[in-house]
């Protein structure tokens, strides 16, 4: 087998607790986004466009749907004889099996997989973020700076900085300080959770970290600070562009709404950077005689008779006459009955909103979430609909 210069390890085990009912039976990377995608499509498409042909996908939480979705990686061009996509769940070894204890431990447990390709560099990414990024440019930066690890960084709002690992950098992009989720951040350059390691260095630190009993086995909390302490070369690759962690109901909703701007910050129709996904094989959407649609993103297989404003509709949504959908994200195969009104909501896959039901309110800023396959009638509204 040929040696690979760089392979990718994609962390896709995220439980996505803060997404509530949307991740009850689904790993976070498999959550729907943007009218026809799942969150993980973005990182996988980035790999495809960055010339990375070997990707290990580390799964753990609720992998069934995710595994089925990923298949052998064909939609992302990863069905390769040499390399391609490999799903890496935790497995039982001679001394018994263990779950992945943290992000670093997940990679540690799959060192044999990486060694098989004997790469020079390893790209660590996660299936939780929405962004378009050329990892090849980041690799060039890594090589040029002679770094042991390069961390992609992006400027975030000062208010939000404490949610991330933040970095201080010098004029040459060298990281001079790194703090994981600081209470009082002193920098607003956040780590995007995208790392390029020189494999020999990563290998060494994974083994150190595993032996350290007080470690959480996490990249941000343990491994990066350890490298920092040892005076290794840590560099930041500054990313300018759209990047969003869609870990909460609010951020998931907001990121979907971002797509509706006349000049969206994340362009999906960029021909040179198509986001690939599994095709649901649905006919073109049918916009009926009584439908009124504006400022929306709508996919194949929808049958629409209602009024739809500033919303994102996934495939197979049926919206009957006099229904009204505003500022909402409607996931696949949802049925919205006659006269139903939906304001600022995320409707889970397969849910049925009975005729005449109102969800949310035009005067309320909270986002209502309807769980997957929920049947919502006026009587059950309070019990069935969860407020975030």
């Amino acid at each position, binding site marked *: 087998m040929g040696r690979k210069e760089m392979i990718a390890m994609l962390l896709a085990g995220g439980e996505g607790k803060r997404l509530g009912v949307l991740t009850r039976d689904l790993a976070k990377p498999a959550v729907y986004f943007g*009218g026809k995608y799942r969150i993980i499509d973005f990182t996988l498409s980035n790999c495809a466009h960055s010339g990375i042909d070997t990707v290990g996908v580390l799964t753990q939480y609720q992998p069934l749907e995710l595994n089925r979705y990923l298949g052998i990686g064909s939609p992302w061009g990863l069905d390769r004889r040499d390399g391609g996509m490999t799903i890496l769940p935790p497995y039982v070894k001679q001394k018994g099996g263990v779950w992945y204890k943290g992000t670093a431990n997940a990679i540690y447990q799959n060192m044999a997989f990486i060694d098989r390709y004997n790469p020079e560099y390893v790209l660590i990414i996660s299936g939780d973020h929405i962004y378009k990024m050329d990892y090849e440019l980041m690799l060039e930066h890594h090589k040029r700076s002679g770094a042991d690890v390069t961390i992609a960084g992006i400027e975030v709002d000062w208010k939000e900085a404490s949610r991330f690992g933040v970095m201080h950098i010098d004029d040459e992009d060298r990281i001079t300080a790194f703090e994981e989720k600081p209470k009082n951040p002193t920098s607003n350059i956040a780590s995007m959770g995208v790392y390029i390691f020189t494999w020999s260095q990563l290998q060494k630190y994974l083994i150190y970290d595993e032996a350290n009993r007080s470690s959480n086995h996490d990249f941000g909390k343990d491994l990066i600070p350890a490298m920092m302490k040892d005076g290794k070369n840590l560099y930041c690759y500054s990313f300018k562009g759209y990047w969003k962690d869609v870990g909460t109901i609010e951020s998931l909703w907001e990121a979907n709404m971002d797509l509706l701007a006349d000049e969206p910050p994340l362009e999906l129709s960029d021909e040179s950077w198509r986001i690939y996904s599994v095709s649901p094989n649905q*006919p073109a959407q*049918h916009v009926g005689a009584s439908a009124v649609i504006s400022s929306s993103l709508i996919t194949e297989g929808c049958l629409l008779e209602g009024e739809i404003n500033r919303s994102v509709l996934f495939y197979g949504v049926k919206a009957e006459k006099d229904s009204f959908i505003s500022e909402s994200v409607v996931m696949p195969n949802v049925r919205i009955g006659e006269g139903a009104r939906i304001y600022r909501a995320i409707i889970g896959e397969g849910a049925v909103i009975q005729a005449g039901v109102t969800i949310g309110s035009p005067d309320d800023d909270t986002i209502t979430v309807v769980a997957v396959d929920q049947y919502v009638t006026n009587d059950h509204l309070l019990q069935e609909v969860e407020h975030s």
Partner: protein
Amino acid sequence: MKHKVMGVINLIHETDELERLTQGRCLATVPFGARYRLIDFVLSSMVNSGISKVAVFAHTKYRSLMDHLGSGKHWDLQHRQSGLFVLPPATDDIQEISRGDLYHFYQQRDYFNRSTLDYVVITRSHMVCNIDFEKVIQFHLEQEADITVVCKKQEDLLTGKARKVMMDEDGRITAIQDHYGRMSSDVSSMEMYVMRKDLLMELVETSLAQGQDHLVRHAIFSRIDKLRVFGYMYEGYLGVVNTITSYYRNSMNLLQPDVWKELFYQPGPIYTKVKDEPPARYLGGSKVTNSLIANGCRVEGTVVNSILFRGVHVQKGAIVKNSIIMQNGVVGEDSFIQHSILDKDVRVEADRDIRGADSAPFLAGKRKII
């Protein structure tokens, strides 16, 4: 499928009066229904019926066909032992290329003989329908037929051209006539034939020995008394698409939600080449009613009773009515388009006014700039 059946999609000498739409492509790859090509309907039907080996007898202008079908993986026809086989004419002699389908079947007889499958389903590409062939095979076996012809009772074919069929009370076909024949019958042949593979090979060899090389006109017509030929009545939606008017009118029929639900979903989904276009975008100020919109479209103007294929852009102030705009078409600002069919990549500049008639839609060829 329980029974061992192979599919044959026969593109040799298909009736084609689609004018400019088939100038650079064969009938099988004419875009239809906002995101499909004509061949997708019969190919998907075969796959949904459990047929896992399909041969496409390509004939002329088949570059777009090869491009569209690729390895067959979009129809799940990429298998180790079976799958999709595109068979262009196995000769470089012009005279021989123009000979009938039996001649070409004979040229590829190894393909048939090597297969262990017992039955063949032979179809064309221009019959737009969604059919379960398993039921046809079942019927074929129950009738102990030699040949089963799939038929449709439909008074108005919307100018599509199809052969007419006459049957007795038992469903046995007594006569088949070409579309211009004078026989009065409202039953049309869907040009789908089921028979044992051995019988097909026998018909190929005996007919060719008699100097006859057309499957239907020669091999079947002339043996209609000797063979047990039965008609299976198909109940679903049928569009016979081989003239411009039938193309236009069958397209417009898709705007009826009932036709849309039936043709695209029942009994199975229709597959096509995946393009990875993003969802369609409707901007503020867009007005769309009674239309089919494919992914990748960007609508800023008004669209009424129309079909937009993938990646079409209707700019501000533009009005598109009763029209079909194929892949990546652009309608410039404040232009007005009515009763028109624009082939792929047609670009209508700003402030243009294009009007065809319902009975004779305006037709713009591929990549034209208006």
